[in-house]
């Protein structure tokens, strides 16, 4: 059986742009699904709530959290750290990059056996970015980081009011023709973490081939009748265990809802645009196909698309 590759979400961005604050926020809010390994440069600036700590390794470099996540320092080089955490039960890595690293270089480093770079987000300090990008020493670096990102996490919007990338970042610019514009999220956006744990479609990262990615499959339910929100959230909580992610739109008596579920974390928020209601369930290809169970449980409101039990194969995990 093909061993599953562990996806890595890279959090890059220049020093002071809010990477650590963002990671502290994730840890404090306890919003990470279980079995995520968070790799940080050092624990110096990381606040892990003592209540969340289950165990600390002998050398103090690995902290296990009560929700099943681990937090790990990157004291060695990346390759050593990947070897070190490969024995832990994790399904996702969140990697805090050094402030001077470039996303493209990080992506190549994340192609370590057993892992693959799934998503690279770059934090951008809305207040200071425009000054930084003209800095004599790091101006070019911070611009490159932004150009090479899949997603931009805009921080300190409260101080800056608003943020817009300068024109020079236009993807139409001659030497960035192969880049698509990165999607921008405010650091306070509750959807951000779900987005970050998802693979990127059609953005900067171009996989060499489908074998590059973990092999995932999905099945899709189409909705034919509105469902009560309480009922919906109960059903979402009891889907078969092999399902790792659920996303889509569901029609309820109070309007269309956007659903995103990663691991045990689930969000149901009003959708802002009209969409065809339906849900996609994603599970590892080697796991049992959950379609039959889903079809039975959701029958009053939804039906399996194409009415077949044969799942679509998703080499690019989306």
């Amino acid at each position, binding site marked *: 059986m093909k061993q599953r*590759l562990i996806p890595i979400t890279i959090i890059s961005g*220049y*020093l*002071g742009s809010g990477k650590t604050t963002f990671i502290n926020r994730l840890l404090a809010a306890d919003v990470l699904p279980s079995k995520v390994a968070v790799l940080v440069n*050092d*624990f*110096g600036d990381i606040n892990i709530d003592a209540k969340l700590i289950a165990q600390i390794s002998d050398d*103090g*470099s690995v902290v296990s959290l009560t929700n099943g996540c681990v937090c790990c*320092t990157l*004291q060695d*080089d*990346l*390759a*050593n750290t990947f*070897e070190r955490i490969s024995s832990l039960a994790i399904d996702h890595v969140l990697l805090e990059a*050094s*402030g*001077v690293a470039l996303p493209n*270089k990080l*992506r*190549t*480093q994340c*192609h*370590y*056996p*057993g892992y*693959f*770079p799934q998503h690279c987000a770059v934090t951008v300090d809305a207040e200071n970015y425009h000054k930084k990008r003209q800095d004599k*020493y*790091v101006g*070019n*670096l911070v611009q*490159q980081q932004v150009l090479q990102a899949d997603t931009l996490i805009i921080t300190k919007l409260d101080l800056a009011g608003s943020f817009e990338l300068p024109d020079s970042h236009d993807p139409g610019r001659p030497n960035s023709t192969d880049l698509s514009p990165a999607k921008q999220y405010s650091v306070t956006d509750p959807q951000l973490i779900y987005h970050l744990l998802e693979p990127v479609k059609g953005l900067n990262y171009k*996989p*060499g*081939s489908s*074998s*590059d990615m973990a092999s995932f499959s999905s099945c899709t339910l189409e909705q034919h009748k509105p469902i009560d929100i309480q009922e919906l959230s109960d059903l979402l909580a009891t889907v078969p265990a092999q399902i790792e992610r659920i996303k889509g739109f569901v029609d309820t008596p109070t309007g269309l809802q956007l659903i995103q579920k990663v691991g045990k974390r689930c969000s149901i928020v009003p959708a802002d645009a009209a969409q065809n209601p339906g849900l996609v369930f994603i599970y590892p290809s080697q796991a049992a196909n959950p379609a039959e169970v889903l079809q039975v449980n959701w029958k009053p409101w939804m039906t399996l698309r194409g009415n077949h039990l044969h799942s679509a194969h998703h080499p690019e995990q989306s």
Partner: protein
Amino acid sequence: MLTLFTAKSIITMNPSMPAADAILVGDGRIIEVGHEDKMQPWLDAHPHTVDRQFSEKVICPGFIDPHLHPTMAAVLLPMEFITAMRWKLPWGIVEPTTTAEQFDQRMVALHAQKEPDAPLFIWGYHQLWHGPMGKQRINNVSSERPMVVWHRSFHELYMNDAALKMTEINEQDIKPGAQVDFSNGHFYENGLGLAINRLNPWLLAPDKYAAGLQRLKQVVQHGGHTSIGDLATGLFDFESEANALASILDGDDVPFRTRLVAHGTAILKGSQSIEDGPALAMQLIERNSHRLKFGKHIKLFCDGAFFSQLSQLMEPGYIDGHQGEWLMPPEILEQNMRAYWHAGFQIHVHACGDLGIELTLDLLEKMQAEKPRFNHGFTIEHFGFSTPEQIKRIKALGAQVSANVYYLHELSDIYSREGIGYERASQMSRLASCFTNDINTALHSDFTMAPAEPLNSAWVAVNRINHAGEVMCAQECLTAQQALEAITINAAHVLGMAADTGSLRAGKYADFTILDEDPLTCDAMRIRDLRIHATVFEGKVFPLDS
């Protein structure tokens, strides 16, 4: 008991008495330098012997390499060398191998000599001379014996099938984008991490590492050194390195002393902050032994390596438009610098390109404004490409230079064509300007980046001849006198050892390098070929048999 050594001539590097012909030694220290007939009062007052074994030789102050890396050397030295440049090693001279055909012949010969089954590690391959490398090419030498061919830059390597099998690297482990070409056995840049991880049992096993350090000991002695600087203790792993160094580089058989300069970020563990650094670095001094000494020194890092074209350059940058790298964010470098500057440390900053040097000088200027210091010994390490204006700033700020002049020899030809263009490539290592501006300037090897042969570094600095045979910027040539200062007294200043060694005068350690000929008067093109007859460390003679 005193010992009087006589010599054909003695080069003292003491400007008040530059030459002499006798030197009196007691208890490892120099009692008097000068002429035999003037030393009678000492000889009358103390029992002594007269040692005339160097009476046809030239005595120089013991050579000092103020920047090399014993740990990296310990990994490299057990390997076989096949190199485009000549390397003089204690166990033999490695003659240049400059064609693909010769490279293959050498591989075959090494394979035939090596005991069966043992893996064969080869270092020094470079495509410009040796043609395209690949798994099949190595398999042709042997598909049974694990063989690894390492690129001269260390940034890539090739394995044959047997080596891939030995390291259990499988094709399905390798993902596109991983900078590994499995079918060709090629691991490069970031893909190298995987290869090194899997090769570590053969490279860093304690016995291998110890054997490598033993070889380093020989290399240092054969280069004529009596003092060296380990300019980043903790490069791989602080404790294991410090322990291995302590067990192998101290003892009566070791003919040199080592200044250990801790790697500024490697000494911090867990949640320790940069501001904890100076106190931790001070604690290291408690470990000092006779030959191995930490001091109030620290090593910090600015921009990327000169060999890999990752140095930070000011406009117009690199010909192909790529950018250099910062090894730490400038703000973090500043924070480190501030902590050590205010704590009174001598700071050594790895800075290679003119933008890296500019940042380093900007930060030093800031520190000087916060807390003015004199004799602070702040050192720019490597000093690949600088501007004339920066020379003035270095002087004004009281800093010094420790340069890897070998860049000019090995890289100036190729960098003039595929790097930075002729003007700047020819002006690497702007050393005569440093001397003209009275900046204390030393030469180092950064071994294993350049041969650990001070006379070779001096030869490059004096002649400025690149490997293609072209003189690059004759205006920056040093005189032989300056070059010898740069590998003795000036290097001692860089390591904070000038009160004890680096020149020959009453009171200093009796550290000598004994040559057959006078490097100040010989044909400048022969400086690197001068035979080193022996070294003397703290009065004890260590002959060299080669």
